[in-house]
């Protein structure tokens, strides 16, 4: 620092009380003004959001390719997802997005306690989302729809006999002697018996990967919002400085955005029964 020439002499807070606002505590020394710092932070967050979209993009691409290769599998296997639970989770996430937006609004207005309340509601909704997801996942585990367990690739599951039950699903070989792939018979969400071809693990594989990566984002989002909440309770934010609340909420809206696409692509697309 000693060899840096300061173009503008730093104000002396004690001498000029009116000028102390120009260099508040929250303003990093490499920014000229709070507005410059705010817009730089926002741009950084949006670039990060773009990279997040591209990370999920790999899975969306896999979805598009696999679905294009075998649309019948997706039509059939999506009946194992519960539309009501998916829709409930969508509304829970949309509501948490609303409260996140309201938290930012309260922070913009400098209403600290109101911001805390909205942040707490957002975090609770995130937890509720995970609880519903837990029930969906455990039901699928129980049915034995987890890829690698029920849908063994014939190279790896030779030990399983024809007609053997794994979990509550039945595995059937068309021609066990010829090493043909296994079919899986299980009851779907509408109570209908479905006979799933071996390739149905493509659907459940992409389902668990996409919703799993999304669930990780929900957990990260909860952590970020909790950190923002603690800082807010400690009085770190004001009308002039609420950037972490804004960026934390942006992250949370991203989690919502991803789910807005996951829900129809996984739960709704396909022929109705």
């Amino acid at each position, binding site marked *: 620092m000693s060899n840096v020439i300061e173009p503008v002499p730093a104000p002396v807070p004690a001498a000029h009380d009116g000028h102390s606002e*120009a260099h508040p505590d929250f303003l990093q020394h490499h920014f*000229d003004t*709070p*507005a*410059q710092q*705010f817009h730089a932070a926002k*741009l950084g967050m*949006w*670039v990060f*959001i*773009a990279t997040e*979209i*591209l990370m999920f*993009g*790999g899975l*969306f*691409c896999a979805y*598009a*390719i696999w679905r294009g*290769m075998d649309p019948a599998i997706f039509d059939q296997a999506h009946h194992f997802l519960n*539309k009501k639970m998916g829709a409930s989770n*969508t509304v829970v996430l*949309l*509501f948490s*997005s*609303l409260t*996140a*937006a*309201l938290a*930012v*609004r309260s922070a*913009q207005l400098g209403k600290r306690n109101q911001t805390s309340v909205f942040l707490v509601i957002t975090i609770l909704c995130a937890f509720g989302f995970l609880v519903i997801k837990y029930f969906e996942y455990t039901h699928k585990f129980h049915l034995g729809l987890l890829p690698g367990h029920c849908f063994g*690739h*014939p190279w790896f599951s030779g030990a399983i006999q024809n007609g053997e039950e794994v979990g509550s699903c*039945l595995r059937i*070989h*068309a021609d066990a002697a010829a*090493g043909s*792939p296994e*079919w899986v*018979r299980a*009851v779907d969400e509408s109570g209908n*018996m479905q*006979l799933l*071809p071996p390739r149905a693990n*493509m659907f459940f594989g992409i389902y668990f990967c996409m919703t799993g990566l999304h669930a990780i984002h929900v957990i990260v989002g909860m952590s970020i919002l909790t950190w923002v909440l603690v800082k807010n309770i400690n009085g770190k934010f004001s009308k*002039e400085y609420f950037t972490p609340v*804004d960026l934390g909420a942006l992250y949370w*809206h991203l989690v*919502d*955005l991803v789910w807005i*696409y996951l*829900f*129809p*692509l996984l*739960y*709704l*697309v396909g*022929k*109705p029964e």
Partner: protein
Amino acid sequence: MSTEHAHAEHDHPDDGRVHVHIATARFYWGIFGALVVLTLLTVKVSYYDFGSANILIALLIATMKAGLVATFFMHLRHDSLFNTLAFLAAFLFLGIFILLTYDDIGKRGQIDNAYGGVTDPRSGVSAPGGEPATSATQDSIEGDAPKGGAGEKKE
């Protein structure tokens, strides 16, 4: 500092302080209501079969919802245009990514004989890296479903 964020209705002084558009709580609740209506709509239409348009309808409604969230909850409406460009650029590159992958997949054969053919779909020539095609892989798997299929009672 630039004044590009100033709005026509209330110009901000260029004083270096953070000036943002603050919407009313009622407005945010209105957006939430619209999002819930669109969610119910997309569930409702999923019970009707529009053939190949199913996925287009679902994606159209999802994009409307995403647009509402990005524009208003994420403040893009009153934010710097450059942030919107950064956001939309992600979708541009995602599109390039998916199109190139589609092109690649369409021009080579499958290599896993448990899940379909191992030949080029048009020429019938064995695909590089794949195992030779057999009757087990060439026959459509749907063609010879094992006994004990859908509809039968589970013992």
